[in-house]
């Protein structure tokens, strides 16, 4: 099995982050083998207080699944606001290739961090700032959250139900922060590649608001070109006009997504053959349905028959049988279903990660979504609060003890 690349295992990242966007960015680098030092206050990073908790142990700083999700493979160092610890922080920054921060300009100032001065003092340092709105602009100090970020950036406008008396509904999983992290990850990689040429670091200023604003897929092009606004529709593409539902309930109570493109004759033929084999095609086998315009006129009838068709089978069967016929269908799997997904199993996607519970436990974590023949990324144990404080202090002292040449 491939191992970490020296391109990453030689890197030190100092992380001063307190939201999932910054923490996940650090995790992505840490899983690649970078030495990512998460600097936490004595009470622990805010995410350590966020549930769910292992065995419901709320209040235990080493029990947050939220923290574990976003902090695999890192080291944890506790520093307070004392001048001595600020001094240690400065030494750690001096030793780092990348400084990762999530503070807004005023929050950075309150933490005693002047990014411009740091860059001047450390010309090779890459400063990676991941903030809700970016370091500049009229909203730079606005407060945010995942919900607020998705709303401001427009993605939320596309998500929800056909029934518009229901407000737009936030997708799960902190996706505004995840989008910020994706760009932060790419931004720091670009800066690292550039640094090999110029020898200089730079500021990478990533805005969650912009990350969300450019990730709405069709919504902006629909405004940029035909000046149309998309309307949210249940679990399928928001579009300028309503389209037919694509969610179908199966006999086992589970849902599948199935987008039947009525205009596609191949997909139509495959669907009718499939329905007919189960004796459920009814009149769709008739010649007149070979005509697209007829199908379009009768789409409510087609939809009714599809609803019955899916109710007569379970979601897993519909998935395999539909895909075997080349039809675009997918079951809406719950997280617990993923552990039994035969494809993910065959690819050995989930990996066992030791837990920082002090009792030799381990649990399955998502593995790396990218696979390289030359090197690998893999999630390692998340740190206990302050687990590496002494170790890192010793390392700094050892560096200082070496007389400079």
């Amino acid at each position, binding site marked *: 099995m491939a191992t970490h690349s020296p391109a990453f295992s030689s890197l030190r990242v100092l992380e001063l982050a307190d939201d999932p966007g910054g923490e996940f960015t650090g995790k992505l680098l840490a899983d690649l083998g970078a030495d990512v030092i998460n600097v936490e206050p004595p009470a622990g990073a805010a995410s350590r207080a966020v549930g769910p908790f292992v065995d419901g142990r709320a209040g235990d700083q080493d029990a947050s699944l939220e923290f574990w999700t976003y902090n695999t493979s890192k080291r944890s160092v506790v520093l307070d606001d004392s001048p001595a610890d600020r001094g240690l922080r400065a030494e750690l920054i001096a030793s780092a290739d990348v400084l990762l921060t999530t503070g807004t300009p005023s929050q950075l100032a309150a933490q005693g961090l002047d990014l411009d001065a740091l860059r001047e003092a450390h010309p090779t340092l890459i400063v990676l700032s991941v903030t809700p709105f*970016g370091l500049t602009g009229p909203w730079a100090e606005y407060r945010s959250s995942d919900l607020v970020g998705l709303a401001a950036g427009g*993605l939320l406008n596309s998500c929800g139900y056909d029934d518009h008396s229901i407000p737009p509904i936030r997708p799960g999983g902190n996706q505004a922060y995840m989008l910020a992290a994706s760009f932060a990850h790419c931004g720091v990689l670009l800066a690292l590649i550039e640094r090999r040429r110029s020898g200089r670091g730079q500021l990478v200023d990533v805005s969650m608001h912009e990350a969300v604003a450019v990730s709405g*897929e069709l919504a902006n092009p629909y405004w940029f070109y035909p000046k149309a606004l998309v309307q949210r529709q249940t679990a399928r593409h928001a579009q300028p006009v309503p389209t037919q539902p694509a969610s179908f309930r199966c006999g086992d109570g589970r849902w599948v*997504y199935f987008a039947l493109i009525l205009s596609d004759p191949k997909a139509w033929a495959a669907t009718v053959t499939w329905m007919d084999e189960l004796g459920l095609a009814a009149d769709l086998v008739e010649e007149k349905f070979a005509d697209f315009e007829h199908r379009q006129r009768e789409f409510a009838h087609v939809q009714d028959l599809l609803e019955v068709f899916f109710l007569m089978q379970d979601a897993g069967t519909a998935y395999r049988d539909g895909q075997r016929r080349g039809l675009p269908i997918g079951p809406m799997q719950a997280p617990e279903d993923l552990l039994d997904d035969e494809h*993910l199993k065959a690819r050995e996607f989930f990996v066992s990660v030791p837990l920082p519970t002090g009792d030799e436990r381990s649990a399955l974590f998502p593995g790396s979504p990218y696979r390289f023949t030359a*090197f690998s990324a893999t999630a390692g144990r998340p740190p206990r609060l302050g687990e590496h404080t002494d170790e890192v202090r010793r390392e700094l002292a050892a560096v200082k003890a070496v007389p400079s040449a």
Partner: protein
Amino acid sequence: MADFCWMGVGSVATRMLADYGAEVIKIENRTRLDTPRKLPIYKGDVRSYGDEDANPDPDKGGLFNNYCRNKLGVTIDMSKPEGRELAIELIRHSSVVTENFAPGVMERWGLTYDRLRELVPDVVFARMSGYGHSGPHHQFRSYGPIIQAVSGLTFISGLPEREPSGFGLSYMDNQAAYYNSAALLMAILHRETTGEGCEVDVSAVEAGVTLLGADLLDVTVNGRATRRPGYPRGNRLEYPAAAPHGVYPTRHEDRWLAVAVFDDDAWQRFGAAIGAPAWTADARFASLDARVAHQDELDAEVAAWSRDEDAHEAMHLLQAAGVAAAAVQNSQDLAETDPQIAARGTFFELDHPVIGPALFEGSPMHLSGSDADLWRSAPLLGEDNDYVFGTILGLDEQRRTELAAAGVI
């Protein structure tokens, strides 16, 4: 970069490298147009996604323009032996090869990693697909909504006790694209450091699973299934507890306001900002625990207030008081009135020979030393054949004319 990518994921993935200076040569087939060239996103002509022209003008599509800016465009018919030979010449002149075809297509053309390494010993070969290049489902069809369904992202999104609302977009087209951009950059950085190339296999489904958040660990660590009453949670937040936390109506039809109040200090600021109506002092809402316990009543009160407000005015009122809030903005808001987007230059305009001036979604990361160079709109079909086949590969005009006449380019 010899870029065989098409559709959404691949084109967005290589766009990032094009923005930041890579010479990305997009290889297209005149007989099988890239789907974004055909999707009817046209100026002055509102149509749904599925309502395509039978014979579309390949240079008119707005989505293609958005996805393929800053790239060079060439045409090669890979079904012809001379086309495949030409592609091999192009690969010899490249250091990165990218593709997001259905698994098996590159193999059919003989373009395996082993073959590419013969052509370019330190090649980076990036393969982007829905399910990855191994496993029993690797040939499955994988549009964005399917990736979202299969990876669990759809299920975790919606109101409890009804069907998932999921995502109203191919969210995973964008996210898988960004993961692929990152993977490409990682492979390039590894090569810059060690001299060694590699093959990259990114699965969009697996990328989706990494984005589920802590609910997944609740399953694997605590054995707590998400198929349970009350899950998913709609706009309410369980971890951390927050209330009010939701999306509320405003005085304009189907315009909404998102509000997130995480602690008692923010609650005090929220109450003061909206003029301290009596209900904000109600004992049922006096602490975070109490507000969470009475969320239905609390949401009704907040909605009764917000219903008379303008979404943006309310956003600024609350933000001025230090409360996290935002109008649920649409694309017109982003493009025309959002002062942050304007100040940061997120959207930018470029002219296009057929489409004319158009807005583009720019880069949300601003690099002080080596920022994006946004120099041209998307190539017309085969626009750069002369430059790439002539200047880069050295084919003379007569040869290019022959290849064009034979339908190879």
